[in-house]
């Protein structure tokens, strides 16, 4: 069959011309739309976009999905907090609230009332529900400055409630870090990826302890480590430590096989960990992991070394310092709990404790016990609650004895003081009234315990 080549090439060039005209027209329309937007955009919005580096979010589909992951984190957190007593006036008066050691007068800033005393706390949380819906609408309309502003509001509210009580778990540490990077820093995607990997790495610092090196956390549990045969716990715990210390960095590898292997490992790890920690931790960490290192991950970002990256790098250095604080305070922080909450502390030790408060005559006025492995038996918490309950009269005298066991090791009498009302708690140094493993006498042996908050008894 004869083909007229010249005619064919003419037709092709005409088609190419038409296509390029269409493309140009499309680009012009797009430019015009931006011009209209730029024209009507107020100075405030322009400044907002510049200060918070919204352009990075606009241009990156990974950060679009990441915004959704942050919203999910807020939803899960606020769902758990909406009925929380410890952040309400009545709760604080009833002694439910424990302030952070670095902010011991936090009760002065509690002003909300929860059900059944009032509606203000639930109103705030429902307003935040509305903000979350607004963010979803912003995502649908691709209004990323609106989404960013909504997440900023949610973060401010979360920060307020977090400051009022030291009940926050490590999932909040993750979520807060993810939010801060998304909201305030340049190179958002890179630092979000680095934070996740760095947190795996930092978490090893709290695991270098018999809890994990010997696997004692899990052998002290009656039910052991899920699906791991008795005696093999030590292999599983050390394998995870090595993976978190070295393997996690391969999430950022340009070698596809290594990157995908590390990714698969950590996905399985989070699903597995949920058997113990339930939904909240996997729901906070898994979505960012899937978004940042899953199907969207093409090649690693080059670590930025520029002016814009200074806050991000400083933030990472800050995490390292926070993680080191408990190691700088004398004594085993798993036993004394001094400085334990500044860094990552998940599964740092299996706890059991019991103790009592006595009046000036030595008569018991209150006691407590906990056999829940994850109830941390922090002497500061018991002291703080009791001080606010008993020491309203300046001349009050109340004694305090507390025995604490970690990882199935003997109970040690870590506190035995004649008067809690005269004590103070220093957040960054060792407190003499809390005895460490070298001073605290052994008083008994524990039995194997369980995981969960259900075995805590206070009277």
């Amino acid at each position, binding site marked *: 069959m004869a083909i007229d080549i010249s005619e064919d090439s003419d037709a092709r060039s005409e088609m190419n011309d038409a296509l390029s005209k269409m493309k140009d027209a499309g680009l012009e329309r797009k430019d015009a739309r931006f011009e209209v937007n730029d024209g009507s955009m107020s100075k405030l919005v322009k400044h907002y976009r510049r200060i918070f580096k919204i352009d990075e979010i606009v241009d990156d589909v990974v950060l679009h999905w990441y915004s959704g992951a942050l919203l999910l984190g807020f939803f899960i957190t606020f769902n758990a907090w909406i009925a929380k007593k410890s952040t309400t006036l009545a709760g604080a008066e009833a002694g439910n609230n424990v302030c952070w050691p670095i902010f011991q007068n936090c009760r002065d800033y509690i002003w909300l009332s929860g059900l059944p005393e009032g509606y203000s706390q639930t109103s705030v949380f429902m307003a935040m529900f509305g903000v979350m819906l607004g963010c979803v609408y912003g995502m649908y309309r691709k209004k990323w400055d609106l989404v960013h502003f909504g997440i900023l509001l949610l973060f401010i509210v979360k920060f307020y409630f977090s400051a009022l009580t030291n009940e926050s778990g490590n999932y909040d540490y993750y979520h807060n870090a993810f939010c801060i990077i998304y909201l305030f820093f340049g190179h958002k995607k890179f630092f979000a990826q680095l934070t996740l990997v760095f947190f795996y*790495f930092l978490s090893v610092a709290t695991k270098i302890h018999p809890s994990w090196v*010997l696997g004692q956390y899990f052998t002290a549990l009656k039910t052991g480590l899920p699906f791991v045969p008795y005696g093999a*716990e*030590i292999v599983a715990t050390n394998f995870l430590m090595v993976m978190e210390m070295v393997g996690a960095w391969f999430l950022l590898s340009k070698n596809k096989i290594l990157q995908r292997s590390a990714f698969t490992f950590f996905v399985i790890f989070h699903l597995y960990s949920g058997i113990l920690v339930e939904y909240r931790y996997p729901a906070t960490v898994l979505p960012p992991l899937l978004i940042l290192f899953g199907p969207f991950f093409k090649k690693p970002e080059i*670590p930025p070394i520029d002016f814009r990256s200074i806050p991000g790098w400083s933030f990472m250095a800050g995490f390292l310092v926070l993680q080191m604080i408990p190691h700088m305070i004398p004594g085993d922080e798993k036993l004394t709990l001094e400085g334990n909450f500044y860094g990552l502390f998940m599964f740092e030790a299996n706890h*059991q404790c019991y103790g009592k408060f006595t009046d000036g005559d030595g008569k018991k006025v209150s006691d407590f016990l906990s056999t829940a492995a994850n109830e941390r038996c922090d002497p500061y918490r018991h002291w703080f609650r009791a001080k606010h309950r008993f020491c309203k009269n300046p001349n009050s005298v109340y004694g305090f004895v507390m*025995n604490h066991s970690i990882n199935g090791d003997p109970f040690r009498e870590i506190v035995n003081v004649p008067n809690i009302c005269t004590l103070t708690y220093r957040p960054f140094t060792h407190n003499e009234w809390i005895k460490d493993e070298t001073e605290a006498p052994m008083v*008994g042996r524990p*039995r*194997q315990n369980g995981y969960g908050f259900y075995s805590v008894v206070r009277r």
Partner: protein
Amino acid sequence: MKNINELPIIDLHLSQNEPAKLNETQELVLPYLTHVETTYWIAWWGVLAYLVVRFILLPFFRKVTLRSAKRSGSGNLDSRTSDRVASQSRRESRIGEHKDRQ
């Protein structure tokens, strides 16, 4: 110091559970625990130091050197920098030629 086995067992409503104790594997590792922990710490700091040097400090110093070399004039550029500049200009000229052909 008291022998641990002589200590009384504290039940805390857990009388149906066995007293917590180390298993055989743990007993085996226990004498070397301090060494293992030290090794972990050395490895941990080692990994961190390697990554900081490899991905932050070296690129930073390279950048600073490059910038100071540029500032002091192209005559002072080291061979690597001049190679990079040359390859960049070659790439740009190739792109230009390609565009011209189109």
